[in-house]
């Protein structure tokens, strides 16, 4: 059993990576340092590809290593690195444990579907829409499921435990808060989870070979792999054990052939073959050139070339989603927001919506819960891309977590100093809504929360103070809007900038240090 240990190597590797990725989507206490997260997520194909395009930095090019790996040994990304792939393996493992069977059979490739999804995703991306990447990227879908569906459960369990321990007067575990988004936002992750359950239980890894564009793309490349899984026709007795263990359904015992483009490199066949007839073989160039290429495949390879060329077009981003108005109208009574606020480091609406795959990692990691998946704030193409929801909470002035963990480069990493001078939007005041103006009672909640005093309280009648704004020094953190007590419309709010700006520095008076020598009473 020469190569049979490959399976166990795959299982261990995939579980380590899977559990880590799952944990970072569940964690609310910032246990994992961002650099470790970034290091692991470097090998998520689409995030890494986007990050490379955004930053044009070779240190973000984990996808190149994935391409090289695939060209060497096939789709190990799908078996060991992709969390959605491993999730399916776990579902299949549970299924086998529960119903004590779970044999597979050969399936014909669904070429129109798989190449169709890939083509659509690439075309949409070139035309500037992230919608299909966001809906189809397996890492981002896994993120949507774990952040949207599993994290609330995790927080609930934590709070249950915290509550029990409080009863015993142990205050080591702290309760955490889950900030729910619009309920409709959770429809898509639920839908994907159902699809995954249905397809994996009924057809093994069919999802990865029909719907997933990354699987299809790597499948194209794995046709050229240097090492591939082959059946040694001299040893094979056509017992069919390999077919029964192949969750991709890509082994035909009749032809004694492995369709390596659909093989997810799980190595079960290698382990299960009683004759040791299945295993990796290094391809000889003679056999390679002898293999016929279909015209269809060739067209797709050309297409990929065209995509890579398209990516280098610098104005791709500029063409993306130009539909949002930039001018703001001063209004009375009802807040008028012309542009949603995008997270600090996202540069603005354009860059953000054209680079984010809505994987929800920042939503999971945001310590205040201000980052929420959008419904239609960015329009339908931007569904689930996170926005700054100032009715849920506000952006913590000292925090740079979202930029530090974003795997696609949609939110770039900012130093704390740079973050504090980035203006995401500007403050607007509707004095007619303000409780000081309407009720003649004190408040100051907005100014109290403001980190720069872009809203400050100035003298008003009867020893009262009333807000006054200085938008030029506002950073757009939304603390004022969050804190403003008026309903339903706030008296103070932040309207997002289409492109982020630099906030002016708040002036600092030098303090006069006078020596205290007496009591003033």
């Amino acid at each position, binding site marked *: 059993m020469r190569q049979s240990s490959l399976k166990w190597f795959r299982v261990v590797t995939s579980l380590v990576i899977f559990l880590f990725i799952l944990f970072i989507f569940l964690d609310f206490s910032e246990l994992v340092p961002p650099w470790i997260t970034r290091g692991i997520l470097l090998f998520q194909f689409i995030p890494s590809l986007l990050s490379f395009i955004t930053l044009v930095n070779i240190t973000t090019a984990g996808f190149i290593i994935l391409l090289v790996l695939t060209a060497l040994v096939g789709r190990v990304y799908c078996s060991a690195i992709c969390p959605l792939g491993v999730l399916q393996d776990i579902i299949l493992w549970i299924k086998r444990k529960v119903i004590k069977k779970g044999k597979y059979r050969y399936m014909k490739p669904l070429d129109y579907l798989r190449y169709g999804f890939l083509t659509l995703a690439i075309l949409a991306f070139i035309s500037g829409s992230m919608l299909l990447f966001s809906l189809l990227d397996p890492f981002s879908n896994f993120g949507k499921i774990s952040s949207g569906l599993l994290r609330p459960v995790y927080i609930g369990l934590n709070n249950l435990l915290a509550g029990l321990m409080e009863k015993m007067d142990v205050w080591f575990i702290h309760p955490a808060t889950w900030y729910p988004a619009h309920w409709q936002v959770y429809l898509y992750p639920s839908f994907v989870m159902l699809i995954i359950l249905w397809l994996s239980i009924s057809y093994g890894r069919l999802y990865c070979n029909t719907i997933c564009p990354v699987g299809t793309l790597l499948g194209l490349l794995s046709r050229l792999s240097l090492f591939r899984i082959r059946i040694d026709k001299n040893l094979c007795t056509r017992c069919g054990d390999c077919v029964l263990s192949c969750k991709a359904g890509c082994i035909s015992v009749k032809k004694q052939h492995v369709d390596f483009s659909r093989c997810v490199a799980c190595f079960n066949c290698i382990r299960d073959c009683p004759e040791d007839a299945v295993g990796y073989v290094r391809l000889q160039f003679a056999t390679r050139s002898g293999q016929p290429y279909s015209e269809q495949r060739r067209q797709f390879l050309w297409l990929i070339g065209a995509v890579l060329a398209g990516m280098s077009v610098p104005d791709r981003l500029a063409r993306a989603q130009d539909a949002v108005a930039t001018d703001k109208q001063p209004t009375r009574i009802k807040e008028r927001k012309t542009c949603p606020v995008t997270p600090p480091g996202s540069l603005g609406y354009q860059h953000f919506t054209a680079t984010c795959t809505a994987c929800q990692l920042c939503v999971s990691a945001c310590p205040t819960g201000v980052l929420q998946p959008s419904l239609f704030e960015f329009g339908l193409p931007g569904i689930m891309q996170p926005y700054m929801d100032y009715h849920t909470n506000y952006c913590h002035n000292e925090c740079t977590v979202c930029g530090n963990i974003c795997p696609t480069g949609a939110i770039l990493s900012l130093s704390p100093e740079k973050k504090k001078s980035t203006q995401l939007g500007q403050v607007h005041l509707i004095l007619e809504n303000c409780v000081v103006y309407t009720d003649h*009672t004190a408040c100051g909640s907005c100014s109290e929360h403001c980190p720069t005093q872009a809203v400050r309280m100035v003298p008003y009648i009867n020893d009262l103070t009333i807000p006054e704004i200085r938008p030029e020094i506002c950073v757009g953190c939304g603390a004022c809007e969050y804190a403003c007590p008026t309903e339903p419309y706030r008296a103070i709010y932040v309207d997002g900038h289409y492109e982020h700006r630099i906030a002016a520095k708040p002036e600092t008076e030098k303090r006069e240090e006078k020596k205290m020598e007496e009591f003033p009473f």
Partner: protein
Amino acid sequence: MRRREFIRKGLGAGIMAGSAIKLLPGTGLSARTGTPENYDMVAVLGGNPGEMFDRAILSLGGMKNFVRPNQVVVVKPNIGWDSTPERAACTNPELVGRIIEHCFDAGAREVYVFDNSINEWSRCYQNSGIEKAARNAGAKVVAGNSESNYQAVEIKSGRQLKRVKVHELILGSDVLINVPVLKTHGGAIITASMKNLMGIVWDRRYWHENDLHQCIADMCTEIKPDLNVVDAYRVIVRNGPRGVSVEDVSTMKYQIVSKDIVACDAAAAKLINKDPERIGHIRLGNEMGVGRSDLNSLSINRIKISPA
């Protein structure tokens, strides 16, 4: 029922302790005589926050007058902001630690420290230095971020605030020591002892919407700290209560200690040149009988600590 018993016991013990040392407002036959241990208020100037408190509590007869053996104490500092001690948005950590030590010296069974922080709580607790100082002094540091820990309380004498959700630790403890930091405040003019009680409630939005000054005064009619210690060592003198930079902070080295929450704040206001009579919640607190804002009617021990 356990909680209610605690309240009853707590209030009972508080009243006993209070009357024992004749510090309850209005009962002070000897309160104005100025003999040691009978001061209405102690004000300290100079030194460092820890030794200032040592001197202040000594002149009030020691912590044993406030904390009896085996009692459960809550020390409530201001941990509202993610800010370092130099920025003075939160209570001085050294002072918090020293108060806890005094509580244990007096025989406290347990000391809890918490605040319903305004910024993300774990950052506030950590960067203010209070979590570490409190732990080192032996206290249990508790997060105030979960609504499930807050219980509804009727404010019987409340004019605007009739009902409020208060943290169960406050309701279940015997002694409450209120340790605010003095700062200016955009809406409330100053924030000190009375306003610090906003940190033990869940829904603060209501207060801002329904006459902030009145709500602050209402709260003080129901929840009465056994001791108030106003930290005015470093004071945010403008752009409060958060401050934009350390330039907003003045090192004044004052501390005010009293059982009278209104008197504390009246004195604190004067430290930063504000007229207590023009600060709504102090005026209302006096008017509603919570405490006395006329400092001339109080016996005040003024202690100066000269630099060593």
